[in-house]
């Protein structure tokens, strides 16, 4: 007995030690940013790691002076539109794939799946040509929203989720005279909140994180997104005020972290553990 007891206890001590160290290392870039974003210009230049009281001044410099507020607003508009649009379009497409039998269904599904192999980075030259030339969308919100409204991932996960919902439900709905959209709104969506939440996290985070595409397609500053805005902040401020840059980075992290924290449970349940519903 004592032997087992000792082994378990020491095992736990090591587990805590390694995990604590890992958490500290993982958190250190952000902790450093948090501390530096609260210091005065002089302190930021020095080695001090003591938190100061200047976060509001630094944030204000970045928010107003460097236009961070504007970038954040643009990113918010884009991320919310893309997340909402992707969710709705994916729900509709999954509804068609699971609850209808129609010719060329397999081909349509393959066409959706195949786009997983075509990330924007690969298409960027032709996409730039098309969006700025043919569509004349350069410098408009449409350029960073519309191309991202469809989601193969979303279609796939909703399809899989719907398939695990008993068929008796849709039979009952049909016998009751409900159409597919009523069935979607009254039955499927209320049963899909975990999957919707999980997808909302990945879609919001990926829309918020867009970098390369806005960098090439958005020429004017007033429509630019936060990720690119932050890199401009470095160019402008790095020599003068790292405190401002760090305050900007901290502010830019807040929306995805909020979404992530709010939907963390759904994220793990509905997505990573998706097979176990």
């Amino acid at each position: 007995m004592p032997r087992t007891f000792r082994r378990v206890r020491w095992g736990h001590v090591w587990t805590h030690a390694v995990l604590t160290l890992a958490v500290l290392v993982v958190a250190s870039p952000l902790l450093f940013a948090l501390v530096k974003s609260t210091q005065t210009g002089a302190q930021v230049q020095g080695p001090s790691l003591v938190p100061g009281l200047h976060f509001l001044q630094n944030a204000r410099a970045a928010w107003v002076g460097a236009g961070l507020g504007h970038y954040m607003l643009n990113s918010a508009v884009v991320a919310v539109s893309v997340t909402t649009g992707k969710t709705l379009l994916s729900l509709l497409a999954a509804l068609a794939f699971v609850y209808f039998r129609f010719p060329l269904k397999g081909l349509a599904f393959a066409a959706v799946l195949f786009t997983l192999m075509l990330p924007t980075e690969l298409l960027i030259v032709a996409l730039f040509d098309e969006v700025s030339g043919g569509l004349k969308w350069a410098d408009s919100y449409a350029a960073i929203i519309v191309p991202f409204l469809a989601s193969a991932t979303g279609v796939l996960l909703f399809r899989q989720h719907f398939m695990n919902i008993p068929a008796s439900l849709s039979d009952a709905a049909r016998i009751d005279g409900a159409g597919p959209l009523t069935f979607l709104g009254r039955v499927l969506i209320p049963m899909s909140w975990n999957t919707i939440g999980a997808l909302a996290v990945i879609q919001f985070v990926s829309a918020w994180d867009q970098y390369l595409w806005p960098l090439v397609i958005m020429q004017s500053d007033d429509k630019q997104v936060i990720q690119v805005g932050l890199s401009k902040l470095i160019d402008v401020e790095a020599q003068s005020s790292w405190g401002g840059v760090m305050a900007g980075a901290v502010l830019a992290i807040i929306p995805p972290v909020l979404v992530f924290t709010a939907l963390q449970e759904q994220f793990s349940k509905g997505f990573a553990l998706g097979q176990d519903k």
Partner: protein
Amino acid sequence: MSLVQQSPNPQTPGPQTPGTQPPAPPQATAARVQDARADVAALEHATFRGRWLPWLFLAPTLIVLAVFSYYPAARTLRLSVFRSNIIVGNEQFVGLANFADLLGSPVYHQVMLQTAVFVVLVVLLGLLCALGLAWLASRPVAGAKFYRLMLIYPYALSPAIAGTLWLFLFNPEIGAVNTLLDAVFGIKPRWLDSPFLAFLLVVAASVWKGLGYNVVFYLAAIQNIPAEVTEAAEIDGATAWQGFWRVVFPLLSPMTFFLIFTNVVASLFDSFGLVNILTRGGPVYGQTGITTFLVYQLYEDGFRNFRTGAAAAQAVLLLLVVVCIVVLQFRYGNRRVHYGA
């Protein structure tokens, strides 16, 4: 690493295989049973009638994909056989000359090689760290939930923000790392000016950035391992180490396989923001910057040097790489799978 991949994000946890069969689930646990069930379910679920209705529901998705994925993909193929400049608007048919130029260029050779080294290092180190930490954080210790959350959170940071934080952290004069190194060892390495250090820095930052994603998936897989299996190993007298490598690790092989592919794709594509902010492809070593990877080179040629044809040819080569990855995943992804229960 965004879960991938959201334009169509490359890091999607979903199956990446085109086909009419129900796709293999992200976690291959009981994949085949699932597939069989899904087949039956697909038949049973065909409930609603309507000739045009399903197409109406599919139309928004299919139109967006056609206009913003398929059409540009076809345009990329076409551009790759022209010598053109999208800014000036001229173009001249050159056949496969763009490809020949690339494959004969020492600069491109170096870019391919350093991308390969980068990807291998990031995937290897990233998965090892994530596996070890997920295993520890899944043990029944006090505060396990807090540890898990703290290990997952880098997922919520963008590559661009990761680049910004690391740029300051490793600033030679005022960064925390050099402040510490200076105090303890009296050295102040110039992280971004030395090719070796800059390369390591980008690798480390990518591993850090990808940790959250990998930990989420490993945690999920570990929690799906039936308790009887690990208990049986313990009763048989396996040490913790043996239990992990002989029992747990093999059970996690489907997840490891899935993560290898998503991580390869992520390190190929998502590294752009990090590299662009942290090193801008530099510092120069040999023929070109040591952190100039394939996507960064594509961006430079397409939007800095305005060599549109060359950039399109690079996109086609990269697409071939992605296709190879997907074919490999499709062929080997469901093999050597150990089913939990």
